[in-house]
């Protein structure tokens, strides 16, 4: 297998908290191949978004990426780049779109100008040329009447159109990797499908890999090639979409999948995972999920489970798996 586009190894992010530094992302590793879509799934507060920001090296102070973490993009170590070099990577090599298209655009500048900012910054082409590129790009992301929309202010566009503008902005420089942080959470169901479809076709056309951050298995099912499930700052299970969705091995993944409403179970009480995600710094010892896990047994509160490979592509961290392997 060729070198992955993005390789993250031992990534930890910590913040100063009560009595020392508190990890919010704890030693996670994953990789994305060129053109592949990896979905990072988990409940709120499990460190998904922080992982994305860490890849961009935009963890806000006083938070920091711990030394010893490794993030490599196309073989380049992002953590050793200088600040201006990193700025050259952002926008040009890695694009990012956010959850809230409503607030992600500057309200006092036309949307065209804002997308142009990205192009001018990285491509260094004259304004008239950049303007043409933006209008072309707007057409490409399915904005009707792109020349007129270039002049529009954010408040004059609908949520779906704004998200299209954000996508145009992120894809303006044809980045190798697109980080989409819950790109459809703030949109209606009908628009959601359109935006996902747009992301899929755009990325397929340009061969862009996607790191998709979501808590919605519907989105995962529609777009992802592989899935990584995060819980309390760690990746607890990963595998191809089919493996994770049809044969989840970690009790947390199983719980998440069971808590999706199903049409055939209409009228029945929706299953849920008991309890809430523990706050960073208050993670229980041993397996962090054991306080909420229906299958917890003796080793769970004592020892952290190790990563167990289940196939060439699937792996999970759970004591149940090692017990099954050695009866």
């Amino acid at each position, binding site marked *: 297998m060729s070198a992955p586009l993005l390789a993250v190894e031992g990534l930890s992010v910590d913040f100063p908290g009560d009595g020392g530094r508190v990890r919010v992302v704890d030693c996670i590793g994953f990789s994305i191949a060129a053109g592949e879509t990896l979905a990072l799934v988990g409940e709120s507060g499990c460190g998904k978004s922080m992982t994305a920001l860490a890849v961009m090296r935009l963890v806000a102070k006083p938070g920091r990426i711990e030394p010893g973490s490794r993030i490599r993009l196309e073989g380049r170590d992002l953590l050793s780049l200088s600040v201006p070099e990193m700025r050259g*990577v*952002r926008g040009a090599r890695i694009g990012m779109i*956010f959850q809230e298209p409503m607030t992600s655009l500057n309200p006092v500048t036309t949307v065209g100008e804002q997308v142009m900012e990205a192009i001018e910054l990285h491509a260094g082409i004259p304004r008239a040329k950049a303007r043409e590129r933006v209008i072309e790009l707007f057409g490409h992301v399915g904005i009707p009447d792109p020349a007129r929309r270039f002049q529009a202010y954010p408040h004059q566009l609908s949520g779906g159109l704004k998200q299209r503008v954000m996508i145009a902005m992120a894809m303006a420089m044809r980045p190798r990797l697109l980080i989409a942080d819950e790109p459809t959470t703030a949109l209606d169901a009908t628009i959601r499908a359109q935006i996902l479809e747009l992301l899929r076709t755009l990325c397929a056309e340009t061969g862009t890999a996607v790191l998709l951050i979501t808590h919605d298995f519907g989105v995962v099912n529609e777009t992802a090639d592989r899935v990584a499930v995060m819980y309390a700052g760690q990746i607890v299970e990963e595998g191809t979409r089919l493996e994770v969705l049809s044969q989840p091995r970690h009790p947390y993944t199983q719980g998440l999948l069971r808590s999706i409403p199903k049409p055939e179970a209409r009228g029945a009480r929706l299953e849920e995972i008991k309890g809430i995600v523990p706050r960073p710094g208050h993670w229980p010892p041993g397996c962090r999920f054991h306080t909420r896990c229906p299958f917890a047994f003796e080793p769970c509160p004592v020892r952290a489970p190790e990563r167990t490979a289940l196939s060439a592509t699937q792996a999970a961290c759970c004591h149940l798996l090692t017990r099954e392997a050695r009866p």
Partner: protein
Amino acid sequence: MHWVSNIVVVLLIVGAILAGRHVARDRFWRENAAQLWRRRPFAIGVIGLYLFLALLDSIAWIDPASEANALTSGKPRTIIDRIFQPERFKEASYSAPLADAAFYGGQPLLHPGAHLLGTDLLGRDVVYRTLKGVRVALLIGGLTSLVVIPIALLFGVTAGYFGRRIDDAVFFAMTVLASVPSLLLLIALIMVLGKGTVQVCVALGVTGWVHFCRIARGETLKLREADFVAAARVLGVSEATIIRRHILPNIAHLIIITFALSFTALVLSETILSYLGIGLDGSWGQMIDQARNELSRTPVIWWNLTGASVALFTLVLAVNMIADAMRDIIDPRTRREER
């Protein structure tokens, strides 16, 4: 010195044309300007008139005709001076508006019925003095704002944006400055710098930037966390460009409103300085201060006070009305939705 003010006039006119072109080109500003005009045509007209008078009083030159006259030789005269001819158009002392005879003694006047608002103690025409005060008032407000806004923006925005040590330092400076009684500081500064238009404006500016700095800092703190700033960062935009293209345009409305409000506060505070004897020569504050002594006479000499205070009141009211309308237009919570 008169050529300096002539150059300033030219620069101001050029600046106004450039600003006007920008407003006409950028839809955001054009719509707001049009709405402002619809809401407050009268106040805008008043401001326009004041600006026009101040310009008339700023263009000065020396010409052979005035050189020939011993009273005016060597002195540049402005257009207003040339219209009123104050050397000739004066009386011996007080005269009531449109009077034919002097207030005291009843001697016939040199220009009977010509002094619309009468004359003051030294026989100077009150209308002329009031009009001369326009330029001083606008200078106080404008020049001081030119000192205040850059200082306040620089400190406020950098403190808010970069936070931590810079913020601590700026906040410390602001707290120290705010804990000294501002009038005391003002008097001390004017004693150090000396009396004069620029000096007084600098003194007012140095004591007055704290308030605006606090507003700019607060707003920047909020904007720093805005999603569109994060989006710009994600695109690899540098900090300086983020401040220039995303922070400053979003506090532009605050700059305009604070400018308008502080303008009136400054013009009014000049009258207090005049009362304390450190005001500007030829200001309305000085006229009011002089008129104060005459209020106890019977029959009362009211025209001196009236000329200056009506002019002052009209200016302050007009600017406040415009500031108020601008806030309504710009603030999205009070803005009518227009498509």
